[in-house]
């Protein structure tokens, strides 16, 4: 049924459709045609989601590791190629991106009323940038998308943000740019090691390439000291993006100031790029460095879990609370990844998706009430469950998903991560479990203060419950939370093979060998006598 998909450049279509949409808006629509622009832009992302959906059905979990490959020459003289392809992990993230894109666009209809043309243009460009990051199989191409995406996000925060938007926007941009330029040096080091060598290290003498698969193949040949340098260069870039403690300080600012759609995309997708970077690059390419720095990585993850949770507990602003909860949840994801075993990485990957769903939903929910009351202070609310019962119900479900209540998605992810962490070092799991308890505390406490108790503030008495449009964009997230919570098997099935592949790369003692990747030229041993 989905055979046609292999005959079209489906990934490029998915990635560039928003770009094309943005260009059409720029050149063919006037700034005052807001209704048209809104509908057109939303139509584009809906179409994009529909195009990306067949990927899920056409993807063969037992087939090639990377599917829907596209390969074209681009900058031959330095070995840069235009390579697209997705494995199960990227598949889930691509679908998450297109889905959250639709929801973010629909939620913007009522939230954004000024400079709408520019708003939707930037949002569309952002979609293209994010999709490209997850699809690129050439490190250079990856980097291009990785940086391109910063510009629209900067504008989204800077133009449509809250009172301190200028500060938050430039802080976001500076932090992430500083991290990514150092990552670039790491990429260049890999590039030269694969080819002619650099500094005191003899290269492998392979043809110059930025192919990620080739780097996967030669990873274990890189001397440990060089691996550690490259790992650190990558670490700065990815850890800022995740964000890991102590690089997280840009996140609360960016989240609080960003418009709702910006927060949804930021939390739902952008942060995943950091964790995706670790999975795709740091772990499989730099196994020795990963194992050597394991205690540090796990330590920072655990500190992030506990610190994020404790700070979240002290927040008065709902959005800031959710932002800090992200720091804590992403700490979980990182801990899972750095358990370096099957359950840990499986859980980490699934939790990336879960966090995108539940935190995306939380930001949407906070946005709903912010639009009505123009405040996010918890103290302003109380007793909302009596005036907005539907809203209260959905909020409760998402809260439970975020806490990790069984039957909902969060439980599956966190439990799997804990299993992985326990297998690696038992007390990691113990400390992380403490984070779950804290998570329940701050989420439930917030829920209690907002929804229960007397309806003290009279301004809240007339609040409207969710509109049809709001239900429309919240419902898919709620449904998915249940689907993953009750029947996670299909999701684990698509990521099983890539996870095994990564485990085998990073810790050969644990993983089962996975067939060669195909595509990359086989690695050769360092040339003797050089």
């Amino acid at each position: 049924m989905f055979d046609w998909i292999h005959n079209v450049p489906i990934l490029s279509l998915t990635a560039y459709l928003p770009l094309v949409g943005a260009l059409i808006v720029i050149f063919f629509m006037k700034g005052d045609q807001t209704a048209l622009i809104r509908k057109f832009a939303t139509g584009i992302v809906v179409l994009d989601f529909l195009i990306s959906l067949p990927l899920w059905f056409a993807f063969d979990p037992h087939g090639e590791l990377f599917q829907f490959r596209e390969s074209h020459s681009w900058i031959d003289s330095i070995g840069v190629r235009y390579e697209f392809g997705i494995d199960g992990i990227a598949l889930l993230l691509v679908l998450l991106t297109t889905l959250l894109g639709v929801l973010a666009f629909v939620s913007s209809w009522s939230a954004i009323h000024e400079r709408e043309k520019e708003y939707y243009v930037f949002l569309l460009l952002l979609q293209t940038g994010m999709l490209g990051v997850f699809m690129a199989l050439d490190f250079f191409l990856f980097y291009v998308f990785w940086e391109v995406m910063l510009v629209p996000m900067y504008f989204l925060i800077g133009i449509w943000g809250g009172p301190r938007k200028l500060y938050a926007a430039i802080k976001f941009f500076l932090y992430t740019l500083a991290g990514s330029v150092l990552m670039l040096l790491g990429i260049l080091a890999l590039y030269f090691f694969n080819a002619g060598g650099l500094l005191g290290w003899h290269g492998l003498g392979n043809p110059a390439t930025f192919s990620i698969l080739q780097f996967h193949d030669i990873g274990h040949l890189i001397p440990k000291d060089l691996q550690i340098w490259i790992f650190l260069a990558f670490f700065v870039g990815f850890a800022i993006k995740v964000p890991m403690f102590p690089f997280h300080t840009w996140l609360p600012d960016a989240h609080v100031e960003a418009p709702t759609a910006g927060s949804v995309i930021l939390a739902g997708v952008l942060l995943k790029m950091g964790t995706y970077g670790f999975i795709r690059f740091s772990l499989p390419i730099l196994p020795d460095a990963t194992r050597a720095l394991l205690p540090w990585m796990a330590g920072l993850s655990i500190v992030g879990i506990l610190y994020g949770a404790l700070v979240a507990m002290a927040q008065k602003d709902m959005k800031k609370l959710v932002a800090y909860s992200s720091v804590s949840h992403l700490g979980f994801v990182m801990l899972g990844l750095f358990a370096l075993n099957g359950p840990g990485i499986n859980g980490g990957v699934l939790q990336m998706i879960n966090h995108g769903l539940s935190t995306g939903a939380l930001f949407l929910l906070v946005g709903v009430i912010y639009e009505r009351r123009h405040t996010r202070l918890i103290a302003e609310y109380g007793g909302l469950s009596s005036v907005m019962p539907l809203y209260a119900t959905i909020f409760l479900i998402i809260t439970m998903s975020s806490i990790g209540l069984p039957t909902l998605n969060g439980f599956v992810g966190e439990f799997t991560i804990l299993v992985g962490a326990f297998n690696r070092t038992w007390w990691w799991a113990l400390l992380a479990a403490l984070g779950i308890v804290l998570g329940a505390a701050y989420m439930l406490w917030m829920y209690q203060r907002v929804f229960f108790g007397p309806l003290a503030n009279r301004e809240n008495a007339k609040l409207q419950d969710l509109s049809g449009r709001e239900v429309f964009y919240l419902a898919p997230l709620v449904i998915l939370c249940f689907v993953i919570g009750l029947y996670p098997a299909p999701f684990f099935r698509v990521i099983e093979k890539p996870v095994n592949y990564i485990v085998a790369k990073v810790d050969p003692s644990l993983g089962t060998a996975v067939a060669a990747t195909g595509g990359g030229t086989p690695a050769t041993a360092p040339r003797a006598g050089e």
Partner: protein
Amino acid sequence: MPNPQDFSYLAPEILLATAGLLLLLIGTLGRGLGSRESALVALVSLALTGFLLFRVRQAVPGRQLILSDTFVLDGFAFFWKALVLIATALVVLFSVRFLEEGGYRAAEYFALLLLASSGMLFMASGYTLLTIWISLETMALASYVLAGYFKRHRRSNEAALKYFILGALSSGILLYGISLLYGAAGTVQLHELSQNLGKALAGGNRLVVVGWLLLAAGLFFKVSAVPFHVWTPDVYVGAPTPVTAYLAVASKAASFAILLRIFYEGLGSIRVEWQTVVALVAAATMIWGNVAALTQDNVKRMLAYSSIAHAGYVLIGVLAVSEIGLWSVLFYLLAYTFITLGAFGTVILLERREYAGETCADYAGLAQRSRFLAAMMLIFLIALTGIPPTGGFFGKVYLFAAAVQAGWTWVAVIGVLTSAVSLYYYFRIVVYMYLVDAKPGTPAPLRAPALVGAIAFCALATLVLGLYPEPFIHLAKASLLPLP
């Protein structure tokens, strides 16, 4: 005695200088030429020069020394000459409306521009220290006058005087260095110089060290590298803005051409000596240029510091002394030419008499006043920061790659970190353009179709260099110097 046929290879240079002199002459006759007519003459002579240049390149596809080994024809020289001609043509387009607005005579202006450019063409081909020095002076003298062309403006006068005094000083230092090297090596011809200097240095001749240091100091002055950069901000701010653009692009490109030629071909044998110095200068230039730019409120002054910072990035490629280092310098300056010209072009469009419209605040709300102009400026600023998909990004990547490969990782680290810092001041303008509302009564941008076209061309070039750099890399790779 040089072969008479050699002079035919000088046709492009001779044509350009003659055109400049003719324009100067016509300018004094009767009421002289208007700015449009003079600009047309200048553009036609630049186009003809370009055509002749191309023919000469076809006639001498390889490398050939002519005129008693004082003048070299090679791909390297061809690259810089073509770049200078393109940049000059764009500056001509920038100047027409600007001169009309300022109410200044045009024929002399374009004549000086052509004369300065002919000096640059000679610079690119100079093969002895003396021919290089003389062509450098040809360029510099014309530039001093151009910087002071707005004679009724104090700032323009100040710029010309500062530029002249410091320029003369640096020329003196350069010449002194040349004389010392001549004393040590007994020749000024680059190839022989390199051979003799190596021997002289091995023989313990300390004169060599003093000589090349002075020579290098003079060259660093011309490319405005720290600590010889102090003239740059004042001159860039005071000079008429098209002249500033010309200095920032064409003059800088030609200066880098001779810097590379002298360092690689003349001082190639003692490269271990100068690599460390160039590394320190590059690091200082990147750090100081970027840090000082952070606090500038005048856009021209900010761009001046930014051009200092970019000289630092280019020096990374110089010190790598590798093939990738060399072609990355060429590629970078190619991209830099279009980016910087575009940025200055936008400044020109927004400028008013008496240097109004130069502060960041004058860019407030530009996105609402002129969506097109704001978008162009955004492209240039993104490119200057080094963010894809622009030529500025690829240029920087190759430079840093050269440094990593050659083992100068610490310089590359400083490079990437300072280029992250540069985001802050470049995006200050973006903040004003897009995030701040316009003050009431801000005048609309100039109406100048030629200028707008030139800016759009620069923006297009910036994007093409970013999205499909392959042919330009080939061009740069075909224009390399022999490595020492």
